[in-house]
């Protein structure tokens, strides 16, 4: 019995929590009350046996525990009154009865996700709330993954929950006309969690890889609840990128470029899952930004070796991506693809004109890219200058080490023209 309750706690807590939040309209109260309900279960179930629908029993008990708590602390704030009133009617019933009659408990996690990622909340609060409330990560774990003080993260959670309550952020899946915009906010939060984990810097690298896994898990949950084309695209993108995780850094944490990675280290199972999902996304004919990025990642995943990458297709995909999502960073990536397709001189012309526009002057990868193109063209002096400029602009240690290595290689090789 204890093992059963344990499993229920581990696997179902977040889902039950989402429903209790809907019933009691308060995150903290819902969490406490659901814990109370599990405590009752541990006491009662060994004697009475497990109820027919344990989830419904727990939700129902949590609801009564919430009322108890409200009564005890006399927290009769606005909303609490109403809750007491509309729950009081059911209070005379056997707590286990009311919900047990329902066979299916609705899955309220989608509401929970949309509430945590409401655009009225700052992005860093959205991310903290999502990881805490939807994924159930411990506050200290989230803090260490983001290299933050526990207190800082706790404060973000408190601020977020206070705003949800006071500003009346609804606990609802948005209406159809708002859905695309609001889904974008959710996907952006998930992708931010992924990137935070994927671009792991040294030190806490291990915990940060967990963040990438968490983001993928969250993506799958979202996919199950809302199988939209862009959700498929995002999950595909994350799977395809994450499949390269082991290959993308060396034994000392140094970055290894895509074309120099040992492709045997790529996770084939994950690539296949990503490709299958991408096919589904493409079949909807809605080519959103995540789907297009996944399609680009798929081109790399399909190439058995770097030399056999279909750069023509990648250029075309960047073209589509630019149309869907104009951005100088995407233009830079397209320039890199053009350089691979048509040679470094063609790419350099594009990067030069892009840098002239001024938006990327402070972006280290723009200078690193130009350095690399100059290096391929044998312009050692120009390459050196650009590497140094890039080095000045980056603060990430693995990036700095990578650029230093490039600089040293440049000096060692002299003016040899190699591609």
């Amino acid at each position, binding site marked *: 019995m204890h093992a059963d309750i344990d499993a229920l706690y581990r696997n179902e807590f977040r889902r039950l929590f989402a429903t209790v939040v809907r019933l009691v309209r308060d995150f903290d109260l819902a969490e406490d009350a659901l814990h109370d309900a599990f405590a009752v279960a541990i006491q009662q179930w060994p004697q009475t046996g497990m109820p027919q629908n344990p989830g419904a029993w727990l939700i129902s008990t949590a609801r009564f525990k919430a009322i108890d708590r409200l009564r005890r602390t006399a927290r009769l704030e*606005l909303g609490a009154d109403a809750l007491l009133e509309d729950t009081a009617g059911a209070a005379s019933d056997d707590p286990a009865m009311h919900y047990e009659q329902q066979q299916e408990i609705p899955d309220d996690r989608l509401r929970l996700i949309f509430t945590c990622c*409401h655009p*009225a909340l700052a992005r860093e609060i959205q991310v903290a709330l999502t990881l805490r409330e939807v994924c159930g990560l411990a506050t200290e774990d989230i803090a260490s993954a983001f290299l933050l003080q526990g207190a800082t993260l706790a404060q973000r959670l408190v601020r977020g929950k206070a705003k949800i309550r*006071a*500003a*009346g*952020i*609804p606990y*609802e899946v*948005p*209406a159809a006309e*708002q859905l695309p915009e609001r889904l974008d906010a959710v996907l952006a939060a998930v992708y931010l969690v992924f990137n935070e984990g994927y671009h792991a810097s040294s030190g806490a690298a291990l915990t940060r890889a967990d963040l990438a896994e968490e983001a993928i898990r969250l993506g799958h949950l979202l996919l199950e609840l809302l199988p939209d084309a862009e959700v498929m695209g995002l999950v595909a993108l994350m799977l395809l990128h994450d499949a390269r995780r082991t290959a993308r850094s060396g034994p000392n944490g140094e970055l290894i470029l895509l074309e120099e990675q040992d492709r045997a280290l790529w996770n084939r199972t994950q690539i296949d899952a990503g490709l299958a999902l991408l096919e589904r996304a493409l079949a909807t004919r809605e080519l959103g930004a995540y789907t297009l990025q996944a399609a680009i990642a798929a081109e790399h995943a399909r190439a058995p070796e770097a030399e056999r990458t279909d750069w023509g297709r990648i250029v075309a995909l960047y073209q589509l991506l630019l149309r869907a999502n104009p951005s100088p960073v995407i233009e830079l990536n397209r320039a890199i693809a053009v350089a691979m397709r048509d040679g470094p001189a063609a790419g350099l012309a594009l990067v030069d004109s892009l840098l002239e526009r001024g938006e990327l002057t402070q972006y280290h990868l723009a200078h690193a890219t130009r350095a690399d193109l100059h290096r391929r063209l044998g312009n050692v002096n120009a390459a050196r200058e650009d590497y140094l400029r890039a080095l000045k602009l980056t603060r990430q240690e693995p990036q700095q080490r990578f650029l230093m290595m490039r600089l040293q290689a440049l000096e060692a090789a002299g003016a040899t023209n190699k591609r």
Partner: protein
Amino acid sequence: MRYLLTIYTNEDDWTADEREACMEESRQLCHALAEAGQFIDAAPLHPVATATSIRVRQGQTLVTDGPFAETHEQLGGYYLIEAVNLDAAIGIAQRIPGVRRGTVEIRPLVLLGGMPSKNKHFARG
């Protein structure tokens, strides 16, 4: 829930005609809100040049010409509305004409208990 929507725009951006058109659009919005049971109050404000700021310190009243803070965009009007939640309030804010030029800030009201129900001597016309 109750929300105060305050509208901030650059006063110098508006011509007299535009201001007139904005008032008319606002009036229509107020009627639509009233129909939906969401209207409590709304008004445009005279320009910030008419603002007076008051402080009382150690029993002394300090009166100064001008707004509380000099900003690039100025408070130009407000709506007081009833809405079920923030999304409903955002939906209303999107329809306020000033939102297309400036910013509408949404603030939930704290509903104090024990307040008088109406002002005895002054009824809004």
